[in-house]
Protein backbone atom coordinates (compact mmCIF):
# COMPACT_ATOMS: atom_id res chain seq x y z
CA UNK A 1 0.00 0.00 0.00
CA UNK A 2 1.60 3.21 -1.17
CA UNK A 3 0.25 6.78 -1.22
CA UNK A 4 1.48 9.41 -3.67
CA UNK A 5 1.16 13.07 -2.70
CA UNK A 6 2.08 16.29 -4.48
CA UNK A 7 2.16 19.68 -2.73
CA UNK A 8 2.28 22.32 -5.44
CA UNK A 9 2.38 26.08 -5.66
CA UNK A 10 4.95 28.87 -5.81
CA UNK A 11 8.41 29.15 -4.33
CA UNK A 12 8.23 30.75 -0.86
CA UNK A 13 4.94 29.11 0.15
CA UNK A 14 6.66 26.59 2.40
CA UNK A 15 5.61 23.55 0.39
CA UNK A 16 8.99 21.85 0.31
CA UNK A 17 9.22 22.26 4.08
CA UNK A 18 5.67 20.91 4.35
CA UNK A 19 6.73 17.88 2.33
CA UNK A 20 9.61 17.32 4.70
CA UNK A 21 7.32 17.53 7.74
CA UNK A 22 4.91 15.07 6.11
CA UNK A 23 7.82 12.71 5.42
CA UNK A 24 9.12 13.00 8.95
CA UNK A 25 5.62 12.34 10.35
CA UNK A 26 5.35 9.19 8.25
CA UNK A 27 8.84 7.82 8.97
CA UNK A 28 10.18 9.00 12.32
CA UNK A 29 6.79 8.93 14.07
CA UNK A 30 4.47 6.58 12.12
CA UNK A 31 7.39 4.20 11.32
CA UNK A 32 6.58 3.81 7.63
CA UNK A 33 8.82 4.38 4.62
CA UNK A 34 8.74 7.66 2.74
CA UNK A 35 10.65 9.46 0.04
CA UNK A 36 10.45 13.14 -0.77
CA UNK A 37 11.68 14.80 -3.92
CA UNK A 38 11.26 18.43 -4.86
CA UNK A 39 11.15 20.45 -8.01
CA UNK A 40 12.00 24.11 -8.07
CA UNK A 41 13.87 26.75 -9.99
CA UNK A 42 17.01 28.62 -9.00
CA UNK A 43 15.05 31.56 -7.55
CA UNK A 44 14.32 31.72 -3.79
CA UNK A 45 10.77 33.05 -4.22
CA UNK A 46 8.28 32.84 -7.04
CA UNK A 47 8.50 30.31 -9.82
CA UNK A 48 6.69 27.02 -9.68
CA UNK A 49 7.60 24.80 -6.79
CA UNK A 50 6.40 21.36 -5.90
CA UNK A 51 7.17 18.72 -3.36
CA UNK A 52 6.41 15.05 -3.96
CA UNK A 53 6.06 12.51 -1.18
CA UNK A 54 5.48 8.79 -1.45
CA UNK A 55 4.53 6.99 1.76
CA UNK A 56 4.50 3.20 1.88
CA UNK A 57 4.62 0.21 4.20
CA UNK A 58 6.97 -1.46 1.72
CA UNK A 59 10.13 -0.42 -0.11
CA UNK A 60 9.89 2.57 -2.44
CA UNK A 61 11.99 2.40 -5.60
CA UNK A 62 10.81 4.99 -8.15
CA UNK A 63 10.83 8.22 -6.10
CA UNK A 64 8.73 10.41 -8.40
CA UNK A 65 4.93 10.46 -8.23
CA UNK A 66 3.03 9.03 -11.21
CA UNK A 67 -0.59 8.53 -10.09
CA UNK A 68 -1.47 10.94 -7.32
CA UNK A 69 -3.66 9.97 -4.40
CA UNK A 70 -3.51 13.48 -2.98
CA UNK A 71 -2.88 16.81 -4.69
CA UNK A 72 -2.60 20.10 -2.79
CA UNK A 73 -2.52 23.20 -4.97
CA UNK A 74 -1.98 26.76 -3.81
CA UNK A 75 -2.03 28.12 -7.37
CA UNK A 76 -4.41 27.72 -10.32
CA UNK A 77 -1.59 26.85 -12.69
CA UNK A 78 -0.45 23.87 -10.64
CA UNK A 79 -4.02 22.67 -10.02
CA UNK A 80 -4.82 22.71 -13.75
CA UNK A 81 -1.52 21.11 -14.62
CA UNK A 82 -1.41 18.24 -12.13
CA UNK A 83 -5.08 17.29 -11.78
CA UNK A 84 -4.53 15.09 -14.85
CA UNK A 85 -2.36 12.72 -12.85
CA UNK A 86 -4.75 12.58 -9.89
CA UNK A 87 -6.37 9.13 -9.63
CA UNK A 88 -10.17 8.81 -9.96
CA UNK A 89 -10.21 7.93 -6.27
CA UNK A 90 -7.81 10.82 -5.49
CA UNK A 91 -8.45 13.83 -3.29
CA UNK A 92 -7.85 17.40 -4.42
CA UNK A 93 -7.06 20.06 -1.80
CA UNK A 94 -7.13 23.66 -3.03
CA UNK A 95 -7.00 27.14 -1.60
CA UNK A 96 -10.52 28.52 -1.57
CA UNK A 97 -9.57 32.06 -2.67
CA UNK A 98 -6.81 31.40 -5.19
CA UNK A 99 -7.85 28.21 -6.95
CA UNK A 100 -11.04 27.20 -8.81
CA UNK A 101 -11.83 23.53 -9.29
CA UNK A 102 -10.19 22.66 -12.62
CA UNK A 103 -12.56 22.21 -15.58
CA UNK A 104 -13.72 18.66 -16.26
CA UNK A 105 -12.55 17.49 -12.82
CA UNK A 106 -15.32 15.66 -11.01
CA UNK A 107 -13.39 13.94 -8.21
CA UNK A 108 -13.41 14.72 -4.52
CA UNK A 109 -12.47 18.32 -3.62
CA UNK A 110 -11.51 19.94 -0.33
CA UNK A 111 -11.50 23.69 -0.80
CA UNK A 112 -10.45 25.62 2.30
CA UNK A 113 -9.31 29.23 2.91
CA UNK A 114 -5.77 28.22 3.93
CA UNK A 115 -3.99 31.42 3.00
CA UNK A 116 -6.76 33.84 4.12
CA UNK A 117 -6.94 32.13 7.53
CA UNK A 118 -3.18 32.11 7.96
CA UNK A 119 -3.15 35.85 7.29
CA UNK A 120 -6.17 36.80 9.43
CA UNK A 121 -5.40 34.48 12.34
CA UNK A 122 -1.62 34.68 12.54
CA UNK A 123 -0.70 37.54 10.20
CA UNK A 124 1.70 35.00 8.68
CA UNK A 125 0.87 33.63 5.24
CA UNK A 126 3.45 30.86 5.26
CA UNK A 127 1.72 28.92 8.05
CA UNK A 128 -0.96 28.06 5.50
CA UNK A 129 1.30 25.09 4.77
CA UNK A 130 0.74 23.60 8.24
CA UNK A 131 -3.03 24.24 8.13
CA UNK A 132 -3.12 22.45 4.78
CA UNK A 133 -1.03 19.50 6.00
CA UNK A 134 -3.32 19.05 8.94
CA UNK A 135 -6.46 19.05 6.79
CA UNK A 136 -4.81 16.47 4.51
CA UNK A 137 -3.81 14.26 7.46
CA UNK A 138 -7.28 14.45 9.00
CA UNK A 139 -9.21 13.85 5.78
CA UNK A 140 -7.02 11.06 4.40
CA UNK A 141 -5.20 9.43 7.37
CA UNK A 142 -2.07 9.38 5.24
CA UNK A 143 -0.23 10.23 8.45
CA UNK A 144 -1.67 10.21 11.95
CA UNK A 145 -2.51 13.57 13.51
CA UNK A 146 -0.38 12.51 16.47
CA UNK A 147 2.66 11.97 14.23
CA UNK A 148 2.01 15.26 12.45
CA UNK A 149 1.87 17.12 15.77
CA UNK A 150 5.20 15.64 16.83
CA UNK A 151 6.86 16.41 13.50
CA UNK A 152 5.52 19.97 13.42
CA UNK A 153 6.75 20.61 16.97
CA UNK A 154 10.15 19.14 16.08
CA UNK A 155 10.50 21.60 13.21
CA UNK A 156 8.98 24.74 14.73
CA UNK A 157 11.12 27.28 16.55
CA UNK A 158 10.35 27.51 20.30
CA UNK A 159 8.32 30.73 20.10
CA UNK A 160 6.23 29.42 17.19
CA UNK A 161 5.26 26.06 18.70
CA UNK A 162 1.85 27.18 20.05
CA UNK A 163 0.99 28.88 16.79
CA UNK A 164 1.83 25.71 14.85
CA UNK A 165 -0.33 23.56 17.13
CA UNK A 166 -3.19 26.00 16.64
CA UNK A 167 -2.69 25.80 12.88
CA UNK A 168 -3.08 22.02 13.11
CA UNK A 169 -6.36 22.44 15.02
CA UNK A 170 -7.64 24.85 12.36
CA UNK A 171 -6.88 22.33 9.61
CA UNK A 172 -8.85 19.67 11.49
CA UNK A 173 -11.75 22.05 12.11
CA UNK A 174 -11.97 22.81 8.37
CA UNK A 175 -12.59 19.11 7.72
CA UNK A 176 -15.12 18.78 10.52
CA UNK A 177 -17.30 21.63 9.24
Amino acid sequence: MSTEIRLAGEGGQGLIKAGFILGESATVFDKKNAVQTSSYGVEARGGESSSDIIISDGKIYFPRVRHLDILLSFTQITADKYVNILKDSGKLFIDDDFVRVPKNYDGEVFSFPYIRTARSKFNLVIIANIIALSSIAYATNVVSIEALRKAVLKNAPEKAKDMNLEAIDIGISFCKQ
Partner: protein
Amino acid sequence: MGNIKFLQGNEAIALGALKAGCDFFAGYPITPSSEVATTMSIELPKIHGKFIQMEDEIASLAACIGASFAGKKTMTATSGPGISLMTEGIGVAIMTEAPVVIINAQRGGPSTGQATKVGQGDVMQARWGSHGGYPIIAISPSTVEECYIYTIHAFNFAERYRIPVFVLSDEVVSHMKENIDFTSVSLPTIINRKRHNSNDEFLTYNTSDPRGVPPMVDFGERHLTRVSTTTHDKRGWATKNQNDINFLHRRLYNKIMSNREDIVMYETDIDVEAKTLVVGFGCSFRSSKQAIIEARKTGKKVSLFRPIILWPFPDKELKEILRGIKRIVVPEISWGQISEEIKKLVNDNIEIVKVNHVDGTMITPEEIIEKVL
Protein backbone atom coordinates in the same frame (compact mmCIF):
# COMPACT_ATOMS: atom_id res chain seq x y z
CA MET B 1 13.28 1.80 19.31
CA GLY B 2 15.65 2.58 16.53
CA ASN B 3 17.21 5.86 15.57
CA ILE B 4 15.23 6.86 12.50
CA LYS B 5 15.98 10.08 10.66
CA PHE B 6 14.33 11.54 7.55
CA LEU B 7 17.42 12.82 5.78
CA GLN B 8 18.60 14.23 2.50
CA GLY B 9 21.15 12.27 0.45
CA ASN B 10 23.69 15.08 0.79
CA GLU B 11 23.28 15.15 4.57
CA ALA B 12 23.79 11.38 4.65
CA ILE B 13 26.98 11.75 2.58
CA ALA B 14 28.32 14.25 5.12
CA LEU B 15 27.37 12.01 8.06
CA GLY B 16 28.99 9.03 6.32
CA ALA B 17 32.18 11.03 5.87
CA LEU B 18 32.21 11.97 9.56
CA LYS B 19 31.59 8.34 10.51
CA ALA B 20 34.58 7.36 8.36
CA GLY B 21 36.74 9.81 10.28
CA CYS B 22 36.79 12.71 7.82
CA ASP B 23 38.30 15.69 9.63
CA PHE B 24 38.95 18.10 6.76
CA PHE B 25 36.63 19.53 4.14
CA ALA B 26 37.46 22.16 1.54
CA GLY B 27 34.94 23.11 -1.09
CA TYR B 28 33.04 25.72 -3.01
CA PRO B 29 29.24 25.62 -2.93
CA ILE B 30 27.35 24.43 -6.01
CA THR B 31 23.89 22.99 -6.54
CA PRO B 32 23.07 20.13 -6.12
CA SER B 33 25.96 19.35 -3.75
CA SER B 34 25.89 22.34 -1.38
CA GLU B 35 24.18 20.61 1.55
CA VAL B 36 27.24 18.35 1.90
CA ALA B 37 29.32 21.46 2.58
CA THR B 38 26.63 22.99 4.79
CA THR B 39 26.46 19.89 6.98
CA MET B 40 30.25 19.59 7.18
CA SER B 41 30.52 23.28 8.15
CA ILE B 42 28.16 22.65 11.05
CA GLU B 43 29.58 19.32 12.20
CA LEU B 44 33.37 19.57 11.65
CA PRO B 45 34.03 22.35 14.20
CA LYS B 46 32.34 20.20 16.87
CA ILE B 47 35.08 17.56 16.48
CA HIS B 48 37.92 20.08 15.99
CA GLY B 49 37.99 19.32 12.29
CA LYS B 50 38.61 21.94 9.63
CA PHE B 51 36.05 23.30 7.20
CA ILE B 52 37.29 25.76 4.59
CA GLN B 53 35.23 27.45 1.92
CA MET B 54 37.85 28.03 -0.75
CA GLU B 55 37.90 30.59 -3.54
CA ASP B 56 37.05 27.98 -6.17
CA GLU B 57 37.09 24.27 -6.94
CA ILE B 58 40.69 24.22 -8.14
CA ALA B 59 41.85 25.42 -4.73
CA SER B 60 39.36 23.15 -2.96
CA LEU B 61 40.89 19.94 -4.26
CA ALA B 62 44.41 21.35 -3.84
CA ALA B 63 43.63 22.04 -0.17
CA CYS B 64 42.29 18.51 0.27
CA ILE B 65 45.44 17.00 -1.26
CA GLY B 66 47.67 19.08 1.02
CA ALA B 67 45.62 18.27 4.10
CA SER B 68 45.67 14.60 3.16
CA PHE B 69 49.48 14.62 3.22
CA ALA B 70 49.23 16.37 6.58
CA GLY B 71 47.44 13.27 7.87
CA LYS B 72 43.81 14.32 7.52
CA LYS B 73 41.00 12.31 5.98
CA THR B 74 39.74 14.77 3.41
CA MET B 75 36.71 15.32 1.24
CA THR B 76 35.39 17.87 -1.20
CA ALA B 77 31.94 18.05 -2.78
CA THR B 78 30.87 19.61 -6.04
CA SER B 79 28.95 19.03 -9.27
CA GLY B 80 30.10 18.54 -12.88
CA PRO B 81 31.21 22.15 -13.44
CA GLY B 82 33.38 21.93 -10.33
CA ILE B 83 34.85 18.58 -11.40
CA SER B 84 35.85 20.24 -14.69
CA LEU B 85 37.91 22.72 -12.67
CA MET B 86 39.30 19.96 -10.46
CA THR B 87 40.60 17.76 -13.27
CA GLU B 88 44.16 19.02 -12.89
CA GLY B 89 44.01 18.27 -9.17
CA ILE B 90 42.65 14.80 -9.82
CA GLY B 91 45.82 14.05 -11.78
CA VAL B 92 47.89 15.48 -8.93
CA ALA B 93 46.13 13.22 -6.42
CA ILE B 94 46.65 10.20 -8.69
CA MET B 95 50.35 10.89 -9.24
CA THR B 96 51.21 11.88 -5.67
CA GLU B 97 48.91 9.13 -4.30
CA ALA B 98 46.84 11.37 -2.06
CA PRO B 99 43.84 9.73 -0.40
CA VAL B 100 40.88 12.04 -1.00
CA VAL B 101 37.14 11.61 -1.49
CA ILE B 102 35.40 13.67 -4.17
CA ILE B 103 31.62 13.93 -4.16
CA ASN B 104 30.04 14.69 -7.54
CA ALA B 105 26.31 15.34 -7.30
CA GLN B 106 25.63 15.20 -11.04
CA ARG B 107 23.38 17.77 -12.67
CA GLY B 108 22.35 18.06 -16.29
CA GLY B 109 24.20 19.12 -19.42
CA PRO B 110 27.64 20.51 -20.29
CA SER B 111 29.06 23.72 -18.78
CA THR B 112 26.81 25.19 -16.07
CA GLY B 113 23.96 23.14 -17.56
CA GLN B 114 20.83 22.73 -15.46
CA ALA B 115 21.68 23.51 -11.86
CA THR B 116 18.58 22.07 -10.20
CA LYS B 117 17.93 19.17 -12.59
CA VAL B 118 19.30 15.66 -12.62
CA GLY B 119 21.96 14.26 -14.95
CA GLN B 120 24.19 11.18 -15.16
CA GLY B 121 26.60 12.47 -17.77
CA ASP B 122 29.79 12.61 -15.67
CA VAL B 123 30.53 8.88 -15.63
CA MET B 124 33.20 9.06 -18.33
CA GLN B 125 34.48 12.35 -16.90
CA ALA B 126 35.16 10.51 -13.64
CA ARG B 127 36.93 7.76 -15.58
CA TRP B 128 38.99 9.82 -18.02
CA GLY B 129 38.76 13.43 -16.78
CA SER B 130 42.43 14.07 -16.16
CA HIS B 131 45.12 13.38 -18.74
CA GLY B 132 47.72 10.67 -19.04
CA GLY B 133 45.77 7.50 -18.29
CA TYR B 134 45.18 5.99 -14.86
CA PRO B 135 42.65 3.79 -13.09
CA ILE B 136 40.10 5.40 -10.79
CA ILE B 137 37.47 4.29 -8.28
CA ALA B 138 33.89 5.58 -8.46
CA ILE B 139 30.95 4.42 -6.36
CA SER B 140 27.31 5.20 -7.11
CA PRO B 141 24.62 5.40 -4.39
CA SER B 142 20.91 5.09 -5.19
CA THR B 143 19.35 5.68 -1.77
CA VAL B 144 19.90 7.99 1.18
CA GLU B 145 21.06 5.03 3.27
CA GLU B 146 23.59 4.16 0.57
CA CYS B 147 24.83 7.77 0.53
CA TYR B 148 25.81 7.17 4.14
CA ILE B 149 27.30 3.70 3.72
CA TYR B 150 29.03 4.16 0.36
CA THR B 151 30.75 7.36 1.45
CA ILE B 152 32.39 5.27 4.18
CA HIS B 153 33.42 2.73 1.52
CA ALA B 154 34.84 5.62 -0.54
CA PHE B 155 37.04 6.71 2.37
CA ASN B 156 38.15 3.11 2.89
CA PHE B 157 39.19 2.78 -0.76
CA ALA B 158 40.96 6.16 -0.68
CA GLU B 159 42.93 5.22 2.43
CA ARG B 160 43.72 1.64 1.40
CA TYR B 161 44.82 2.48 -2.14
CA ARG B 162 45.98 6.12 -1.76
CA ILE B 163 43.79 7.33 -4.60
CA PRO B 164 41.10 9.94 -5.21
CA VAL B 165 37.71 8.19 -4.99
CA PHE B 166 34.53 9.54 -6.55
CA VAL B 167 31.12 9.25 -4.99
CA LEU B 168 29.02 9.74 -8.12
CA SER B 169 25.67 10.86 -6.82
CA ASP B 170 23.10 12.80 -8.81
CA GLU B 171 20.58 15.56 -8.18
CA VAL B 172 17.80 13.10 -7.36
CA VAL B 173 19.80 10.98 -4.91
CA SER B 174 21.55 14.00 -3.36
CA HIS B 175 18.40 16.07 -2.86
CA MET B 176 15.85 13.39 -2.10
CA LYS B 177 14.89 12.68 1.47
CA GLU B 178 14.32 9.19 2.84
CA ASN B 179 14.20 7.45 6.17
CA ILE B 180 17.36 5.86 7.46
CA ASP B 181 17.54 3.82 10.66
CA PHE B 182 21.03 4.32 12.04
CA THR B 183 20.67 1.40 14.46
CA SER B 184 20.17 -1.14 11.68
CA VAL B 185 22.58 -0.04 8.92
CA SER B 186 25.46 -2.43 8.38
CA LEU B 187 28.70 -0.54 8.04
CA PRO B 188 32.12 -1.59 6.77
CA THR B 189 35.06 -1.60 9.17
CA ILE B 190 36.84 1.75 8.98
CA ILE B 191 40.19 1.49 7.18
CA ASN B 192 43.01 3.96 7.74
CA ARG B 193 46.14 4.41 5.64
CA LYS B 194 49.29 2.45 6.45
CA ARG B 195 51.80 4.64 8.25
CA HIS B 196 55.55 4.45 8.60
CA ASN B 197 55.81 4.74 12.36
CA SER B 198 59.46 3.89 13.03
CA ASN B 199 62.62 5.97 13.02
CA ASP B 200 63.98 3.80 10.18
CA GLU B 201 64.79 5.53 6.94
CA PHE B 202 61.63 6.74 5.17
CA LEU B 203 61.18 7.06 1.43
CA THR B 204 57.91 8.62 0.29
CA TYR B 205 57.14 5.84 -2.18
CA ASN B 206 58.95 2.98 -0.54
CA THR B 207 57.61 -0.22 -1.98
CA SER B 208 59.13 -2.85 -4.23
CA ASP B 209 55.78 -4.55 -4.67
CA PRO B 210 54.60 -3.88 -8.24
CA ARG B 211 51.04 -3.66 -6.84
CA GLY B 212 52.05 -2.03 -3.57
CA VAL B 213 50.68 0.97 -1.73
CA PRO B 214 53.49 2.71 0.15
CA PRO B 215 52.99 3.74 3.80
CA MET B 216 52.71 7.45 4.61
CA VAL B 217 54.24 9.88 7.05
CA ASP B 218 52.37 13.09 7.84
CA PHE B 219 53.91 16.36 6.70
CA GLY B 220 55.81 17.77 9.68
CA GLU B 221 56.30 14.39 11.36
CA ARG B 222 59.74 12.94 12.10
CA HIS B 223 60.58 12.23 8.43
CA LEU B 224 60.76 14.29 5.28
CA THR B 225 57.93 13.53 2.83
CA ARG B 226 58.92 14.49 -0.70
CA VAL B 227 55.98 14.74 -3.09
CA SER B 228 56.27 15.27 -6.83
CA THR B 229 53.68 15.32 -9.56
CA THR B 230 56.38 14.52 -12.06
CA THR B 231 57.14 10.83 -12.60
CA HIS B 232 59.31 10.02 -9.62
CA ASP B 233 61.38 7.30 -8.00
CA LYS B 234 60.84 5.77 -4.57
CA ARG B 235 62.41 8.80 -2.89
CA GLY B 236 59.94 11.13 -4.57
CA TRP B 237 62.61 12.66 -6.81
CA ALA B 238 61.68 13.39 -10.41
CA THR B 239 63.19 10.72 -12.61
CA LYS B 240 64.03 10.08 -16.25
CA ASN B 241 65.11 6.52 -15.56
CA GLN B 242 63.12 4.19 -17.78
CA ASN B 243 62.86 1.47 -15.15
CA ASP B 244 61.64 3.88 -12.49
CA ILE B 245 59.09 5.42 -14.86
CA ASN B 246 57.84 2.00 -15.88
CA PHE B 247 57.68 0.74 -12.29
CA LEU B 248 55.68 3.75 -11.06
CA HIS B 249 53.12 3.76 -13.86
CA ARG B 250 52.58 0.03 -13.65
CA ARG B 251 52.27 0.17 -9.89
CA LEU B 252 49.69 3.01 -10.06
CA TYR B 253 47.71 0.84 -12.47
CA ASN B 254 48.12 -2.49 -10.76
CA LYS B 255 47.47 -1.33 -7.19
CA ILE B 256 43.88 -0.83 -8.36
CA MET B 257 43.35 -3.29 -11.21
CA SER B 258 44.98 -6.30 -9.54
CA ASN B 259 42.72 -5.63 -6.55
CA ARG B 260 39.53 -5.12 -8.54
CA GLU B 261 37.85 -8.11 -6.82
CA ASP B 262 38.28 -6.29 -3.51
CA ILE B 263 36.80 -3.10 -4.99
CA VAL B 264 34.01 -4.14 -7.36
CA MET B 265 30.46 -4.03 -5.96
CA TYR B 266 27.27 -4.85 -7.85
CA GLU B 267 23.76 -6.14 -7.36
CA THR B 268 21.68 -8.53 -9.46
CA ASP B 269 18.06 -9.63 -9.65
CA ILE B 270 18.00 -12.60 -12.01
CA ASP B 271 15.23 -14.49 -13.79
CA VAL B 272 16.97 -17.46 -15.46
CA GLU B 273 14.44 -17.42 -18.29
CA ALA B 274 14.89 -13.72 -19.03
CA LYS B 275 15.79 -12.59 -22.53
CA THR B 276 16.09 -8.96 -21.42
CA LEU B 277 18.60 -7.57 -18.95
CA VAL B 278 18.18 -4.05 -17.58
CA VAL B 279 21.36 -2.31 -16.42
CA GLY B 280 20.77 0.74 -14.22
CA PHE B 281 22.84 2.74 -11.73
CA GLY B 282 22.30 5.75 -9.45
CA CYS B 283 18.79 7.18 -9.61
CA SER B 284 18.17 5.20 -12.81
CA PHE B 285 18.60 1.99 -10.80
CA ARG B 286 15.47 3.04 -8.91
CA SER B 287 13.59 3.44 -12.21
CA SER B 288 14.96 0.08 -13.36
CA LYS B 289 14.05 -1.83 -10.20
CA GLN B 290 10.51 -0.44 -10.27
CA ALA B 291 10.30 -1.35 -13.96
CA ILE B 292 11.25 -4.99 -13.47
CA ILE B 293 8.83 -5.37 -10.54
CA GLU B 294 5.98 -4.04 -12.70
CA ALA B 295 7.07 -5.94 -15.83
CA ARG B 296 7.15 -9.24 -13.92
CA LYS B 297 3.61 -8.62 -12.69
CA THR B 298 2.50 -8.73 -16.32
CA GLY B 299 4.30 -12.05 -16.84
CA LYS B 300 7.46 -10.70 -18.48
CA LYS B 301 10.79 -12.39 -17.84
CA VAL B 302 13.48 -9.83 -17.12
CA SER B 303 16.73 -9.54 -15.16
CA LEU B 304 18.52 -6.61 -13.58
CA PHE B 305 22.18 -5.75 -13.14
CA ARG B 306 23.27 -2.76 -11.12
CA PRO B 307 26.90 -1.65 -11.06
CA ILE B 308 27.48 -0.06 -7.62
CA ILE B 309 31.16 0.49 -8.28
CA LEU B 310 31.19 2.13 -11.72
CA TRP B 311 35.00 2.19 -11.94
CA PRO B 312 36.60 -0.28 -12.19
CA PHE B 313 33.51 -1.39 -14.14
CA PRO B 314 32.20 -4.83 -13.05
CA ASP B 315 32.65 -6.21 -16.57
CA LYS B 316 33.47 -9.83 -15.66
CA GLU B 317 30.52 -9.95 -13.28
CA LEU B 318 28.14 -8.60 -15.94
CA LYS B 319 29.41 -11.07 -18.55
CA GLU B 320 28.70 -13.96 -16.22
CA ILE B 321 24.95 -13.33 -16.26
CA LEU B 322 24.47 -12.95 -20.02
CA ARG B 323 23.39 -16.56 -20.72
CA GLY B 324 20.13 -16.44 -22.68
CA ILE B 325 20.09 -12.65 -22.84
CA LYS B 326 19.12 -11.21 -26.25
CA ARG B 327 18.72 -7.57 -25.30
CA ILE B 328 20.30 -5.23 -22.75
CA VAL B 329 18.30 -2.12 -21.86
CA VAL B 330 20.39 0.71 -20.42
CA PRO B 331 18.54 3.73 -18.99
CA GLU B 332 20.81 6.75 -18.44
CA ILE B 333 20.17 10.46 -17.97
CA SER B 334 22.79 11.32 -20.60
CA TRP B 335 23.45 10.30 -24.20
CA GLY B 336 24.65 6.98 -22.84
CA GLN B 337 28.02 6.27 -21.21
CA ILE B 338 27.67 3.00 -19.29
CA SER B 339 25.93 1.63 -22.41
CA GLU B 340 29.18 2.27 -24.32
CA GLU B 341 31.08 0.30 -21.69
CA ILE B 342 28.62 -2.59 -22.07
CA LYS B 343 29.02 -2.55 -25.88
CA LYS B 344 32.66 -3.49 -25.38
CA LEU B 345 31.61 -6.66 -23.56
CA VAL B 346 29.01 -8.20 -25.83
CA ASN B 347 28.92 -9.59 -29.35
CA ASP B 348 26.45 -8.73 -32.11
CA ASN B 349 23.97 -11.38 -30.92
CA ILE B 350 22.96 -9.10 -28.07
CA GLU B 351 21.13 -5.90 -28.88
CA ILE B 352 21.91 -2.85 -26.74
CA VAL B 353 18.85 -0.62 -26.32
CA LYS B 354 19.59 2.79 -24.86
CA VAL B 355 16.91 4.74 -23.01
CA ASN B 356 18.18 8.28 -22.66
CA HIS B 357 16.88 11.47 -21.10
CA VAL B 358 18.66 14.77 -21.62
CA ASP B 359 15.83 16.96 -20.30
CA GLY B 360 16.73 16.94 -16.62
CA THR B 361 14.08 14.40 -15.63
CA MET B 362 14.23 10.84 -14.35
CA ILE B 363 13.57 7.96 -16.72
CA THR B 364 10.19 6.44 -15.88
CA PRO B 365 9.62 2.72 -15.27
CA GLU B 366 7.16 2.73 -18.21
CA GLU B 367 9.88 3.81 -20.63
CA ILE B 368 12.01 0.87 -19.53
CA ILE B 369 9.17 -1.68 -19.52
CA GLU B 370 8.37 -0.72 -23.13
CA LYS B 371 11.79 -2.04 -24.18
CA VAL B 372 11.56 -5.37 -22.35
CA LEU B 373 11.21 -8.34 -24.73
